[in-house]
């Protein structure tokens, strides 16, 4: 069984590949310096994605306890079937 699974796995890309599949060219590879710069370019920049800096609570009950203790309202963000961090 394990051998069969391995065979299917190794053939998968062969069956899918086109005759003109992309070739890995050394000239196209990122240098270590370029890599670091590109990584930094993609990641959130200062001031972006500020919602990720909020210390979210994952329980309405915990939010109620904190809100009641501090005398503050609760901001609820739900999605994906009202499961904020679950699958959509």
């Amino acid at each position, binding site marked *: 069984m394990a051998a069969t699974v391995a065979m299917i*796995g*190794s053939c*998968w*890309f062969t069956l*899918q*590949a*086109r005759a*003109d*599949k*992309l*070739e*890995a060219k050394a000239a*196209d*590879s*990122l240098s*270590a310096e370029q*890599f670091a710069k*590109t*990584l930094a*370019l*993609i*990641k*959130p*920049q200062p001031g*972006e*994605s500020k919602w*990720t*800096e*909020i*210390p*979210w*609570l*994952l*329980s*309405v*009950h915990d*939010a*109620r*306890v904190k*809100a*009641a*203790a*501090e*005398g503050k*309202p*609760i*901001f*609820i*963000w*739900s*999605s*994906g*079937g*009202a*499961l*904020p*961090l*679950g*699958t*959509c």
Partner: protein
Amino acid sequence: MNRQDAEGEFIRDTCKLKLSGAGGEIVCVTASGKVLGGKDLQKVLEAWNKLPESERKPGAVQVGERGKIDTAKVDRAYPTPPPGTLILKTHARFLGRANEGHLRHVTPKDFIGDDKVRAQMVAAYPAAFARERLDGTLPKDVLEHKRRGIAERISEAQPDFMWLTEAEWKSLVPANPKKGDQFAVPAALTKRIFVLHLDPNRLVGEPDRNAIVRSGELNLTVEDISPTSVRLRLDGSALLRVDFETAQKTGQEGEEARLVGFLNYDLQKKSFTRFDIVAIGDTYGLLSPGLGHLTYSRPGRSPYGVAFELVSGSGGTSTPEGYFGTGK
């Protein structure tokens, strides 16, 4: 909210709320369950300040015990990775090209927010843009709203996570490494990276994700070995759906990407201490037309980047706290 537990009861029965599904919702309530409003936080604050101080002051509301919780729903929503899971934080981002050809961040002008870009896209895909009234027939204020949405939503990095089971990440550690050794990343792991993390066109409930990968490979090379660590370099490429030339002729969408990564494995800790991957490529064609994402589509090649980084502390005997959903 369909949870049949204390949390669901508070939302449904106490707050009298029926939260929407996939589209998401923002609502503000008091600890006692009074609804204050939605996204307009100024109005929420006004409603809050109108409440008697006896309802607003700290300690005024007694919340009580937690109540019964549907742990199955909680586990599905906030799954706990199995012990030893290596967790990668990912970010995906639409990019642009500066005049010199260097990659840069996008602006709304790169998308239909610019009249020239919109005209090009309408000319290339008249039916799709007419169907969503992005062909110039939308009222100006609605179009402006979409432009702001582009600026706010898709100009920034989109976060996600990738889990590698202990068996998966251990399969990337060569048994007896020698400098220069090369080996392929297991096909299943490669496919998962391509299918779930490279594709900006990923649709909800798309029937056959496997079919989107036309070709691709990921390989690891042992770059250096020391008594304490092994350094690996990852190189690869991916072609999703169709190539650019075919897309230009047929109107289909696709993506070509190159991947480079640097991985460090600590021989004493028996865990990865670095697991950084960058995928850079071009998308082309219409993006998710069925989901109204034409606003993200651009003419020609659209640069796109994905970054993978190790969540510190993962891939060992415990799971780092707070990595998932609490702002980290």
